[in-house]
């Protein structure tokens, strides 16, 4: 199958000793009519990893997937799969020559074929008799329903069939296009876990397109964030959550308190919140914005504080405005006392009126409780460009 592809210019023979990236995307551009969707995407994906492409609606993530699969042609740029150039504008390998497994949004199972027929679709006639179909039925825990038709399956089963069908011809890469968005919330978590386990068991390189940051953070080894047709950050889940590339991204990948501060050699001086330690390199001097994740805030009831300690530096007073209870933890919205904001303003600093804090549910908290806040752990800072 691989030999049938006409090698594009600059095609390299894959070297088995060096860990080659399976996917290498360079300066990829794509427009629909006058609408520029991809504006120079660079992305490199290592073998055996699960990479999430995270982005809002309209960020171009589905277009990227369709270009990888070969359903559309690029306007500019280059895509290499396993060392072969599959699209460099002049030459474009058709989808059937790319060795890519594609799992679309709603599964898109062939309604006229049974589960077994769907899984065996990509195999040759003799290939269907080698036991590969049974192997995948067992892997995806579908052996019981092999003779059923798609409409007789649950949503989760359909999604597993779609995955098994994509895995059957042993592709170099699996593309998952928002595979869980059609499932209801209760089912989503379990199907997610199933899919992850199957992908790990098959040790397959895969790309998951999603707009759900929880999904990306919990499932993927690497996350590439797409915004306005460009990759703005490609990192592990932890890096992305702790050190996002800019404040906007910080808000996108989770709840965030963005607080103004002044960068000094000692750290970020956030006024009443104290001087905060920086994570990584100091991004310059002067005015900056720091990211304090809600779980980095220590919340104490004002009544429990030892006297005299109440309004010191690093401890800021506030009142609980709203309290959202999630069972495993809770999210507090805390309104800072106007005195604290006023004091900060006098010092030439603008504190936000509200801060978010995440708390384990051990300590009972109620709306209206007076509390003090402090920050723990290092923070990420971005120098203000003005």
């Amino acid at each position: 199958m691989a030999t049938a592809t006409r090698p594009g210019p600059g095609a390299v023979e894959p070297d088995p000793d060096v860990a080659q990236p399976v996917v290498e995307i360079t300066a990829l551009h794509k427009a629909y009519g006058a609408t520029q969707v991809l504006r120079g995407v660079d992305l490199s994906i290592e073998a055996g990893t699960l990479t999430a492409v995270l982005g809002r609606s309209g960020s171009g993530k589905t277009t990227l997937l369709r270009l990888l699969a070969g359903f559309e042609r690029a306007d500019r740029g280059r895509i290499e799969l396993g060392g072969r150039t599959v699209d460099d504008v002049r030459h474009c390998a058709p989808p059937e020559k790319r060795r890519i497994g594609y799992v679309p949004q709603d599964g898109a199972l062939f309604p006229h074929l049974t589960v077994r027929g769907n899984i065996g679709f990509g195999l040759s006639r003799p290939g269907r008799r080698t036991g590969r179909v049974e192997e995948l039925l067992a892997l995806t825990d579908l052996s019981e329903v092999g003779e059923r038709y798609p409409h007789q399956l649950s949503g989760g089963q359909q999604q597993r069939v779609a995955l098994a069908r994509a895995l059957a011809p042993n592709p170099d890469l699996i593309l998952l296009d928002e595979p869980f968005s059609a499932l209801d919330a209760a089912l989503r978590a379990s199907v997610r876990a199933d899919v992850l386990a199957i992908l790990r068991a098959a040790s397959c390189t895969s790309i998951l397109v999603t707009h759900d940051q929880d999904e990306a953070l919990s499932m993927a080894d690497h996350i590439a964030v797409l915004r306005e047709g460009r990759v703005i950050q490609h990192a592990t889940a932890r890096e992305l959550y702790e050190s996002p590339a800019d404040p906007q991204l910080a808000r996108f990948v989770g709840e965030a308190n963005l607080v103004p501060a002044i960068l000094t050699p000692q750290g970020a001086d956030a006024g009443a919140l104290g001087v905060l330690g920086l994570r990584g390199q100091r991004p310059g001097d002067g005015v900056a914005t720091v990211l304090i994740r809600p779980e980095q805030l220590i919340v104490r009831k004002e009544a429990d504080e030892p006297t005299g300690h109440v309004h010191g530096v690093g401890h800021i007073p506030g009142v609980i405005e709203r309290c959202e209870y999630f069972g495993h933890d809770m999210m507090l919205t805390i309104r800072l006392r106007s005195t604290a904001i006023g004091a900060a303003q006098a010092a030439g600093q603008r504190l936000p009126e509200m801060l978010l804090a995440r708390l384990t549910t051990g300590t009972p908290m109620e709306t209206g409780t007076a509390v003090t806040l402090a920050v723990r752990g290092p923070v990420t800072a971005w120098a203000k460009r003005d």
Partner: protein
Amino acid sequence: MSAPAETVPGGAVVSAVPSFRARRRRRPVLLSGFAGAAAALTLLPLVFLCIQAAQAGWSPLLRLLFRSLTAQLLINTVELACCVTAACAVIGTAAAFAVERTDLPLRRVWSALIVLPLAIPDFIVGYTWSSLWPALHGLGGAVLVMTLSLNPLIYLPVAASLRASDPGLEEAARSLGLGPIAVFRKVTLHQIRPALLGGCLVVCLALLAEYGAFEILRFQTFTTTIYTEFTRAFSSSAASALALVLVLLGLAVLAARHAATERRGLAARAGGAARRPPVRHRLGLRAVPVSVGCALLAGLSLGVPISTLAYWLTQPRATTLPALATVPAAAETTLLYALLAALGATALALPVALYVDRHPRRLSRLLESVALSVQGLPGLVIAMALVFFSVRFAFAVYQTPLLMVGGYAILFCPLALVCARASLTHAPARLEEVARSLGARPSVALVRVTLPLMAPGLAAGFCLVFLSVVTELTATLLLLPTGVETLATQFWAYQNDQSYAAAAPYAAAIVAIALVPSYLLGVWFDKRRGA
């Protein structure tokens, strides 16, 4: 396009601006070639009609058009269209409401009895009434016969629209204090209006194209006049001048129908979310008059033709032996032509449907419109144009089965195309893409995925074309090779001699053959309704 809207914020831009970017997609050379050829073939009759008319010269053409005969024909046509359409609209809507929205007993039976007359060709209905009541002719006879034959064309879309409409709207109107009659007038009628309007325009098209029934009832319309002029003087310019007027009328009605059905699509989608069956009105004792009304309609439109046919079949003295002997041979010819024509029409429609569904852009939409515009051309006009064409440019095919089958295929290509397009909703491009990513070449994906999923719709289109060919008369009379006889031409020959009994076996055979595809189509529509 399976790409969700999010990837293309300006979705309309994709097709509206065919800039050089648009060319970056894979070009479907083969598919567009086939689709273009099919569209060109369907355009052939219109082109040759214009050539023929132009050869007559402009001033004689205008002289032929601006005479009292044309005015008389126009008046006849408008009178007939107004009366029949109004009568069909009232009867069809009332029947649809009774069947879909009341607790009338035996609803499924009534529904079948109301639709079944569609399987009986209009010229046979005309023949049965005329043989039963020889004094029946002129406008009155034409209105009676055509109303009885065509009212299912309104019943079907209105019933479908009543079934699909959102009962929530009517419930909301009731809760706002409107009585049942006010709800019907203000809400229900509004919901079914696009379907009703579309149905009325289909009735108009059928009236423009009908020949046999009007000839029997001695009612002069464009078709009967054109036929007479054409058969009397072989390449009469008068025939082509009148045919041009008829084509313009037909295309105008078609354009109006297109506008009406566009809106129907929107209405159906808006109500698509609710899959709750509508609340049925309780009839109580009123069920008796409603049932009597349904029985009257079924009796007149189905009972009269069938029982008259049965009467003539059992007249042993009038039925001559040679007439009966040719029934099997004529039936065989009819079946053969119908099969070939259905295959041909499906073959023409398939590439056009695939092309416009998979590559919706200006060119493909244009090709589809061209293929669909044939609906506005009466069979008589298409047959006439093909005779001109073959006599002048391809004499080898004149009077051959090839021209006959080609004529049928062009004439009924729109039926196959509409069915093929509808069936493509069951075979979205997404599935083909998945097949491609699993290693299937485009042709393999077509054979293994798209065609199996389209099969029920294609089969429905096949049945529809088959049914139409079996019941076709006008084009058959003009295009059939000499020496070959079908059921319809044999029937027509005997009927012309007023040999009612001799014509009856052929009419009965046509109805019997037409009932098979009608039954299959009924089953198919019922299935789709359930899905």
